[in-house]
């Protein structure tokens, strides 16, 4: 065994606080490898247990509205066009034209080059979802694979921010993570975070996608969650939606446990976004229960919790109509976007 020369890492504020001011890759590695393990059977059993909660009546009504209020309505296709983005924005602003009490979604989520069209379509309604407005999230850093040079990833990010994106959904370098180059992954997140800085000094919010389907083990998911938080993530996000499995309840529960532990340690609140594969209201309600019983219901606001989904909203609207009218309608009574 040889003694490694310490490799200094970018001095991200959180990591410095936790690991000391002479931040090295070795210190990061020791921390990540020293985390308590995850028992897969136990984790999945707990997620299954949370899924048995029965959410009825007023609780269900609140949950359905919360799902819409915290949804990132998403289109991430090679075939996306300005017209498709305008249609998505219209849906985000008015999810259900038959019921004006329907809340707006939190954000639209698009590729970076589509941001100007979203800005234009949103007009005055572009803004903070806590105020009832709609944010724009852009995927960046050579989404979804992340296989590009750092310079390109940073340029991708800066362009989206300059065009008016409020939130950047970046991907981590899973190849680097799986080969143990934690320092590289860390430094890239820190650099992308810096690229989120606007001209006025404020920052676009950074969501860090772990792509848990490629990390494969729960132990890796826990380590990657810690790594992303230490590097400065505002949100940690499960998946791109382009890899199967995407978000699952056990993975989301595990990431929420890391967020809870970070909060216990520092009092700071980090956000969470499961993305991909959540299509039914019933499933989405289970996620809300998991949030409320793991980190607390104060997380159920657009600043700390998002669903990344494209078809979920319509199922929620059908359920809302059922609660309001007492009977089910069908897919032709909600709009395609």
């Amino acid at each position, binding site marked *: 065994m040889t003694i490694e020369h310490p490799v200094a890492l970018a001095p991200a504020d959180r990591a410095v606080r936790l690991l000391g001011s002479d931040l090295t890759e070795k210190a990061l590695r020791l921390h990540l490898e020293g985390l*308590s*393990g*995850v*028992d897969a*059977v*136990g*984790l999945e*059993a*707990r997620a299954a247990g949370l899924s*048995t*909660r*029965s*959410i*009825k*009546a*007023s*609780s*269900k009504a*609140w*949950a359905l509205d*919360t799902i819409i209020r915290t949804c990132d309505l998403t289109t991430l296709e090679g075939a996306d066009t300005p017209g498709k983005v305008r249609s998505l924005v219209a849906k985000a602003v008015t999810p259900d034209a038959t019921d004006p009490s329907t809340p707006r979604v939190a954000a639209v989520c698009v590729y970076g080059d589509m941001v100007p069209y979203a800005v234009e379509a949103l007009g005055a309604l572009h803004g903070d979802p806590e105020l009832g407005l709609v944010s724009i999230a852009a995927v960046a850093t050579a989404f979804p694979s992340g296989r590009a040079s750092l310079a390109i990833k940073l340029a991708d990010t800066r362009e989206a921010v300059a065009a008016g994106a409020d939130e950047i959904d970046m991907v981590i370098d899973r190849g680097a993570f799986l080969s143990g180059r934690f320092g590289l992954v860390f430094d890239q997140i820190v650099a992308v975070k810096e690229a989120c800085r606007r001209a006025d000094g404020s920052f676009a919010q950074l969501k860090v996608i772990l792509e848990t389907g490629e990390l494969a083990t729960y132990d890796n998911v826990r380590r990657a969650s810690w790594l992303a938080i230490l590097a400065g993530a505002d949100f940690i996000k499960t998946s791109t939606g382009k890899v199967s499995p995407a978000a699952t309840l056990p993975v989301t529960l595990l990431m929420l*446990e890391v967020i809870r532990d970070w909060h216990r340690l520092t009092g700071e609140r980090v956000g969470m976004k499961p993305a991909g594969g959540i299509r039914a209201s019933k499933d989405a309600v289970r996620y*809300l229960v998991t949030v*409320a*019983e793991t980190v607390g*219901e104060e997380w*159920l606001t657009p600043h700390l919790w998002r669903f990344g989904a494209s078809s979920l909203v319509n199922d929620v609207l059908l359920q809302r109509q059922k609660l309001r009218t007492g009977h089910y309608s069908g897919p032709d009574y909600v709009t395609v976007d």
Partner: protein
Amino acid sequence: MSFLEYAPAPESTAILNLKAQYGLFIDGEFVDGSGEVFDTISPATEEVIARIAQADASDVDRAVAAARRSYEKVWSRMSGSDRGKYLFRIARLVQERARELAVAESLDNGKPIRETRDVDVPLVAAWFFYYAGWADKLEYAGLGPKPRSLGVAAQVIPWNFPLLMLAWKIAPALAAGNTVVIKPAETTSLTAMLFAEILQQADLPPGVVNIVTGPGATGQALVTHADVNKVAFTGSTDVGRTIARQVAGTSKKLTLELGGKAANIVFDDAAIDQAVEGVVNGIFFNQGHVCCAGSRLLVQENVHDEVVDRLKQRLSTLRLGDPLDKNTDIGAINSAAQLERIRTLSDTGENEGAERWQLDCTVPDKGFWFRPTIFTRVSAAHSIAREEIFGPVLSVLTFRTPEEAVAKANNTPYGLSAGIWTEKASRMLALADRLRAGVIWANTFNKFDPASPFGGYKESGYGREGGRQGLTAYLESSGWQAPIESSAASSRSGRKARKAVAK
């Protein structure tokens, strides 16, 4: 309104079709008892659910006679495969009426519907399915060819898992060819009565299963009856000891499944969130009314504060209340007497110097309730570390080394179960070898399966229930030895047998 105050989601009781009064089930019929009729109440509301007949010695006598007749004339003569068909039929009927049984059990026992629906009733069906498969394969039970049934089995069961304990007792007894007289606990007879209806539906020959209800005296009349061949008891160590004395000197075979004070051992390298979850499940499952409950948490001293902190945080999401609400985690304590016992022992714990922490939650005005409780600063000398509380009360002790963990875990008159939490498999296996407990769970707790034998060491009783071992408690070797064949001959006959099956 807070989201976490989930709106009520009560399971409807409309599915129940209860009678105002239930008789004894003897010889395939409901009949009146000679003792005074008593009420069975819901421990969550103290309201009367139904009235239950009380069997005295003469009724027990009739029940044993019916079981004897049925044993001699029908059940012991029936082929194993036909016995199996009845058991399969019972299992399927339990599944068909699962919802109804779950609601009745929650109502009568006070345990949450989530548990009766997801644990108790599915396991009841699983137990009958499992032993149905054994009925025609008794020569593989390990007692040599043609093992014999024992005759009439007298079975006395507790109130914590009323229907499940009934299944644990009846399924292997019937598969092995015995007939049964069973006495449910005084406070929880209701599901046994519904089960009697299922037996009628299944067309089980009269007298194969007889159910006598009543207090401890009824059970005593049953186990001391001269014409029973086998006694099986699950319950407290005190009563078990009395039964052992009463049965001593007779030819009755005896199995006892008694109390416990299980150690749940958490090492510093455990998967901590899952360990906390397992500790919660270990002691707060079924309000802690579980003989194998992990009531002593042994946690490595260097992670004590962290584990206790996380435990408290996790407990704060538990929901105590209406057992029939689908979101209830902690139901009612089964009886006023049990509640009193839990209170007394908890007060003793505090007086002896342990530190009490209780979940801050509202408790309904009516019914019997005890808030989930953790005692820290407990030492091995405290009575709450030694006596079985049988309630939602966890005592936390610490250890420094694996040797100390083993010594403390084994330092109890009981020996029913234990739990080990570590990510290190070599330590897990080494420790399991040295723990004197009948069931050892590693990185899980309170998992039950009909194929797995269950039972205790020391004052937790003797004999095993479940699996092949559970079957042998209802069989004896015929003493008949197969002629020793040459290996060539046996492989030939083996081939012949396989061919016969293929036809």
